[in-house]
């Protein structure tokens, strides 16, 4: 129910959806973000396109249920600080989600206008709000928070851990975040290439969190540098947000050949190289002048594609066993990759990586799609006799990740699903594991998923902890 604003009720028709980005030839020369940020006027114009629907489908679809129409309205009115407060109320990392959420599958995909009229570029506005507010000196207002004297340890400074820490800090609980790496963010920092998420964003967000009183114990691996017992002794609760790092292999011959690389170490190595942070456990791998094949159709595959292009690969082809319509990755990333010169080989299922002592090519079979399952995805069926070999110098395997919880968790009564995910309780105290003092969330409990869902889990785990402490 919106108040009539005759002057701009039709702004969604008169102004277009806008998402300016650098031209592909320019952007492949660097690892910086490709989207041109909004200024005040363009943010207001774009926000003004929002219809203020009675059913805010964007908000409904958003995993953290951001109050999107409300902050769009505030941006339209130029009330940036109120927008920032509101945006940060439901999301711990709004400027990051604004950059890397697959909006076309979430808010923007659900947007009423995404039906021929062009969805409001919600993600860009979300990014604009917090970026700009922080630049203008905004900080979350914690002035009326009363310390509770409770403490919680958080393992993993990824999105889940940060989401958890954010809520704890806002509710007077001391949050100490442990991470084995030398910077916060987890995959946000190291897994996601800089052209999608500028690393300054993370360091700025770290400052915000530190100003909120969150403490980070970096370069500290729990189970090695500090034990779980110690954490349970020192803290009222422990949150596990350790993600999923065990990558899925293809299970076909030739995966061990030199020139075959799993996606994640490849991406991490590249980021560390860009930031001159040293190799740590993921050495830099350069694709310059190579013919590169990327296997997979998800966002990690897209990151590999576009990283390889930027490294100066001679050619980059992405091999996927379903067709374009049935690929899981973000539409926007697909478009970006295509623009940047990535070739897509759809309906090809890898059978074997061929080569004598190093990669020389990939044997694939063509597929056709069978009937859709109840989720609407159609399964690939190989077409006999359609095998072929695609020549390559390097193969990047991006088939996804599986949970790999540390084995010592079992000693503390934490239970697991068969596939390795940590079991957490359903309603009531979401996030609580079988050990009432230990909470978990993110990929670790739900399996490999989005940043925003990890944030959501971390936040809910924090609420569950607050509830368990009767705060």
């Amino acid at each position, binding site marked *: 129910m919106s108040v009539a604003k005759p002057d701009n*009720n039709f702004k969604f028709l008169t102004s277009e959806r806008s998402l300016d980005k650098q031209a592909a030839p320019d952007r492949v020369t660097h690892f910086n973000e490709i989207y041109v940020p909004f200024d005040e006027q363009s943010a207001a114009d774009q926000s003004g396109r929002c219809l203020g629907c*009675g*059913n805010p489908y964007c908000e409904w679809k958003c995993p953290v249920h951001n109050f999107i129409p409300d902050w769009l309205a505030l941006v339209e009115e130029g009330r940036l600080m109120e927008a920032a407060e509101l945006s940060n109320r439901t999301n711990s990392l709004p400027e990051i989600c604004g950059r890397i959420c697959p909006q076309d599958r979430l808010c923007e995909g659900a947007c009423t206008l995404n039906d021929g009229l062009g969805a409001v570029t919600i993600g860009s506005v979300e990014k604009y709000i917090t970026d700009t507010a922080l630049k203008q000196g905004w900080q979350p207002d914690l002035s009326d928070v009363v310390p509770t004297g409770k403490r919680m340890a958080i393992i993993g400074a990824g999105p889940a851990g940060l989401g958890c820490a954010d809520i704890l800090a806002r*509710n007077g609980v001391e949050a100490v975040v442990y991470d084995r790496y030398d910077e916060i963010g987890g995959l946000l920092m190291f897994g996601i290439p800089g052209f999608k998420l500028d690393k300054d964003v993370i360091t700025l967000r770290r400052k915000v969190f530190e100003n909120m009183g969150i403490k980070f114990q970096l370069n500290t691996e729990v189970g090695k540098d500090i034990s779980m017992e110690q954490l349970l002794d020192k803290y009222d609760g422990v949150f596990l947000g350790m993600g999923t790092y065990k990558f899925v292999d293809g299970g076909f011959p030739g995966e061990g050949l030199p020139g075959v690389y799993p996606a994640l170490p490849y991406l991490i190595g590249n980021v560390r190289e860009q930031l001159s942070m040293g190799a740590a456990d993921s050495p830099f791998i350069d694709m310059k002048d190579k013919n590169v094949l990327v296997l997979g159709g998800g966002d990690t595959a897209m990151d590999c594609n576009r990283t390889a292009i930027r490294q100066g690969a001679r050619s980059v082809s992405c091999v996927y066993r379903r067709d374009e319509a049935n690929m899981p990755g973000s539409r926007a990333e697909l478009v970006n990759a295509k623009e940047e010169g990535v070739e897509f080989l759809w309906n090809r299922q890898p059978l074997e990586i061929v080569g004598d002592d190093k990669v020389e090519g990939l044997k694939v079979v063509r597929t056709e799609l069978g009937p859709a399952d109840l989720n609407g995805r159609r399964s690939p069926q190989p077409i006999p006799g359609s095998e072929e070999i695609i020549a390559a110098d390097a193969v990047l395997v991006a088939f996804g990740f599986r949970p790999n919880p540390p084995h010592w968790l079992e000693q503390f009564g934490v239970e697991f699903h068969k596939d390795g995910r940590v079991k957490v309780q359903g309603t009531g105290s979401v996030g609580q594991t079988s050990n009432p003092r230990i909470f978990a969330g993110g990929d670790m409990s739900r399996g490999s998923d989005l940043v925003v869902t990890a944030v959501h889990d971390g936040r809910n785990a924090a609420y569950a902890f607050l509830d368990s402490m009767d705060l």
Partner: protein
Amino acid sequence: MYNRTPHNGLYRPEFEHDSCGFGLIAQMDGVVSHSLVQSAIDSLARLTHRGAIAADGKTGDGCGLLIRKPDGFLRAVAAESDIKLEELYAAGVVFLNSDETLASRARDELNQQLANEGLTVAGWRVVPVNPSALGEQATRSQPQIEQIFVNGDADMDEVDFNRHLYFARRRTEKVLADDDSFFVTALSCHVISYKGLVMPARLPELFPDLGDPRFTSSICIYHQRFSTNTSPSWKLAQPFRYLAHNGEINTVQGNRFWAQARGSKFASPLFDNVDDILPVVNSGGSDSQSLDNMLDVLLSGGMDIFRAMQLMIPPAWQNDPHMGEDLRASHRYHSMISEPWDGPAGIVLTDGRYAACRTDRNGLRPARWVITTDRTITLASETGVIDYPPEQVLRKGRLKPGEMLAVDTWTGELLMPADIDRMLAQRHPYESWLKQHSHYLTDIDCAAKSQAEFGEGIHGDSLRTYEKFFNLTYEELTQVLRPLADNGQEATGSMGDDTPMAVLSRQVRSIYDYFRQSFAQVTNPPIDPLRENIVMSLTTNFGRFRNVFDEIPEHAAKVTTDTPVLSRRAFQQMQALDQLGLSAEMIDLHYRPLDDGSILQQVIEGICSRAEEAIRAGKTIIILSDRTLDREQIPVPALMATGAVHHHLTRLGIRGDAQVVVETGSARDPHQIATLIGFGATAVYPFLALAAVEQIAEGEQKDPQTACANYIKGINKALFKIMSKMGISTIASYRGAQLFEAVGLHDEVVNPCFEGVTSRISGSRFIDFENDQRHLARNAWKARKVVEQGGLLKYVHGGEYHAYNPDIVRALHGAVRTGEQRYYDEFASLVNHRPPATLRDLIGISNDQTPIPLSDVEPLEAIIQRFDSAGMSLGALSPEAHESLAIAMNRLGGRSNSGEGGESIDRYGNERTSKIKQVASGRFGVTPHYLVNAEVLQIKIAQGAKPGEGGQLPGDKVNDLIATLRYTRPGVTLISPPPHHDIYSIEDLAQLIFDLKQVNPEALVSVKLVAQAGIGTIAAGVAKAYADLITISGYDGGTAASPLTSVKYAGIPFEMGLAETHQTLRLNDLRDKVRIQADGGMKTGLDVIKAALLGAESFGFGTAPMVALGCKYLRICHLNNCATGVATQNDELRKAHYHGLPEMVETYFRFVIEETRQIMASLGISTMEALIGRTDLLHLLPGETDKQGHLDLSPVLAVDESAHGKPQFCSSPRNEPFDKGEKAEQMVNDTLEAIDNKLGGIFNYEVQNIDRSIGARISGEIAKRYGNLGMADCPITLKLRGTAGQSLGVWNAGGLNLELEGDANDYVGKGMAGGQLVLYPPRASLFKSHQTTIMGNTCLYGATGGTLYAAGLAGERFGVRNSGARAVVEGIGDHGCEYMTGGVVTVLGPTGINFGAGMTGGFAFVYEPEPEHADHGFETKVNHELVEIHRMDGRVGDSQTARYAAFLRDEITHFTAATGSDWGQEFLDNFAERLPGFWLIKPKISEFETMLEQVV
């Protein structure tokens, strides 16, 4: 006796309404005759069509006579019965119980009480009665009818005698309260009454006394009743002891309470013991009876009828520009003594000396009078009830709004309205009394001086705490309060309300949410608070009420404010009133709750006692405040405290000694504030809303003071709107009237706090409210808890449940786009297994029946005939969506509904046509051609989104197509008035139904109502008005743009309305006569099954098929920017973004019906018919929350034992009117050949007032063959003589001309599309045509073409919503050319006030030369909002003046030629001199250069 009232269902006897025809006949010099009585009886019979006839076809709703005592006759029959009468005696007809034991007890009691008063009962006489005059129902309930004769004491005068009679009667009534039959009709030494449950023609047959030639009188008032109540009752037949009333007292509940509240103030020096007569007004019975009760006590206490009427039914004096200061002072003075009895009212009354008539402030009931050469005055609802030779008629006229007319039969004096006003104005020096004693609150000094001191002083954290404490959400701030603060305007929304009733909700909902606003439908009209603001007032007085009978200066000692919504400043001024002797007591509403059980009720009792003590100690203002917060305490909900204190003080009779002011954070929106006032608050100080508004203004960098003023202005407007929905004009009458229905409140709450409000299904208890408030308070003090986001208006994750939430919309889209069952199953499962969100979700269907094979269930083709799409106009919907719906319903075999706004001719007769054509208050596009192209004609009385309110189609939505269909021009804003201006009362609805059945005899007529308490009673009235179908809509609502508080707080769930209607119709043997449709948020087959089991035989679907067409429930329909192209007129959105197909709707209904069939199979029932009303197949579910568990839905499923075996569904093909319209049929027979062969011709007829809707039958025949204007070139002319009944020339088609020598009643030329209507007085008349009323009210309503020439005056609302007709008349009443959008109206004489209100098209000429008083000129009569006026003296611009002058002259020339009017001839003879006396009135938006061409 029949009068058993079922208590287990939803029907309640207090839902009684009545309306009717009435009249008065008096010989002005007091000359008695039997012929006068005979004339009254005859004219009563001529009003038969204004009354109702019961299901037995014979029992009327009652009629009767109140007659100046026929002395000779009474003495004669007394003598025959050996009864000795003294010089001073009284006689009265008494209804006694048919059980002789009870009758005997009653006689003894009355005898004893009369004896106690020092009177002598001379004897009892059995009144001869002829039972063969009675119908079956009347016979069943017939009392023993006897006449008592009482002799006065020698030293009593007549006034004393009547007062003793009154006391004896009141005491007897109180003693015999348990005997429902006992009733003393009138017991007085001046008048006597005969009345009964018969049709008028049979009244003299019932009472042979009336035919006795010795039965002579000089005054007779009479009445024919049309009760919407279904149990006709002998004692409620009218006239009562002093009056007969046509109309409805909308404020009666409040009036009854206030009569009780002021109990002790009725002490008259003439009354020995006022306690004996209390309560002076009965709480049962009809509104008219209560009115009579009040008049009874006032007159018995020594008041005269003029002052009594002034007190009870004042005119709209506040805003009348022409009222003299002395008269205004007199009215203002009296407004300080009593609140008005407000509502449509024509009242005839007599005390034996005076015979008088009074009309309400808005002139909503007609009253036409004739004075003949034998000095007899006849006055009635209609003209022509007595046939007088033209040469005997001296004068004729009508009573205008708020007027009173009387004859004094002792002196022979005729008191015209101006005479009575003069008398009232000069009775006392009211002006100086007021000057001396009264004050305005704005003038009061108070401590705070600077603006800053008037700020609320609540900011930041403190404000956030308050917001959390009182559950003020972000949504409310931005969507509700901000529009008020910014624009002084309540926000608008659309797509109705899809959230659960408060009692079903899992969220914290305030007590205000439990109350649904009452609204007027059928039995009385809502008012247009914008265009007819002139009759409305929020004036509120502080100060003690005094004795009603004392006419002393101290009554004026009041402090007045112009709104009951107090600003900070006003609140402080009010607390400073002790300087005027008005001192305030502040009562804090907070208390400390206990952990084991609620003490809320005890706390409330304590508050009541404190208020009582304060008043006993002399305090005159009680302030109930929840402002001071405390961590350990929670407040009593302010509404509970207000209601409880009000009732407590009322019961003690001391409410009038103090005002109750509420300082609260809980009331912020208009509904909340209206609820407080409706339950008795004198004024409300919404401090938290004001603080929030200040904060909003600061955020926008605006002035907080202005924002607060805007907020109050917006609330004021919304209060007008809420009052006007019930047809109430003044806040004084609204206050304490409890015009709400409680849905989901337990009796333990209702009884102490809201006693008397309708509450039928129980629900939340004190503990539930206390728990909610504790929960809020807990969070309020926690800094970390943020202010809630909301979700009551829009879907918010985790907030209130919405029945059309995104999941459901998506699922439905998936089902209709793919056509796959699994997607529909997902949709149906989401709906059918949702958390209980509607009442039907707490009602399960039987699972222990023996199933039958699906193939045994009747097929889709049979079931679909029961499915209609709900009325959605082309205007709301895009043409594409509108046609998709029509095509889908036609292909399926159901029916689509045109909605309001006409339909393109190229859709008639093919699959794009809407089989249901709607007739709504705007009458847009309603022409004879439109009406004959329908299977069903639906009169939309109200709509679920905003019952009781009008609508507006903004100019930017009116494109070429819409303008053509609605007979207007593009870009013109089109207003649908709140009421149908031809339905102010139930008998008016009967008339409109008759009009429609005349123009299209094949069509069924449907009446669409919105569920509310008493809808069963209304539906029974509608059935008796001969509707064939009744649609019961829930509160849900659709595309209509509505103020948010209307969306949320008016109308109740259809389940309650449907069940009540079904139960009530069965109880009264009417169920088989009319079909019932349920409509409201139904989505699945399970919904259909439940509706059928509750009594519906057909089903209306609005939103669901719209969603099927692609609607995403955006709630922006009112902005014209619907992104799905469904509800917009924007070309781009319609063309490029509308993706709906008829097949999607077809697919949807196929799924629904298949699901329906499957459930039928599981119930073992093969046909829909066998489902209807089978509530035995339903059972109550326990509910999932405490509150749900406290509900008691058993009344919804109840079946009264007396209904067993009665029909469950309609079995009559149609509901034929009693009036067969024989003369109209004759006319059709006579003219059919001329129509068929386009021959033209002239035909002659005599007509009487009982010949109604003359012309419509022929127009229908013409339109069927030739459309609206296809026969205009070879017209048929009917030459009529006499008085035409109502609706002369209604829906007139081109090709039919009517020429009437005589006069006509209301609705002449209503909906006419073409042809010519000519009216002139009989050639032998003695009066001057330009001083004499020739036709009644609401003429040319919704006309689209044709001409009307009338040599005489027209009534109120002439040309209302005219969009094309041209007319010339010699004078008109108030509200002329209201909402006009086209055509030309020429008035050769004066108009009433409020001319041109809401006029957006066409233009008018009015002849009003310079007035005697400069401030009484035409300028003061015009509503200047949308029109401008120009003298026709050259100022228009030379060439323009000349063109318009030439046009005007032509109009007058045609008029004079057609009517032979002498007055018209005078204008032609002196045109140049007269021309400057004319005004030209045009909409501001119209251009002189083009305006003329557009209408000619």
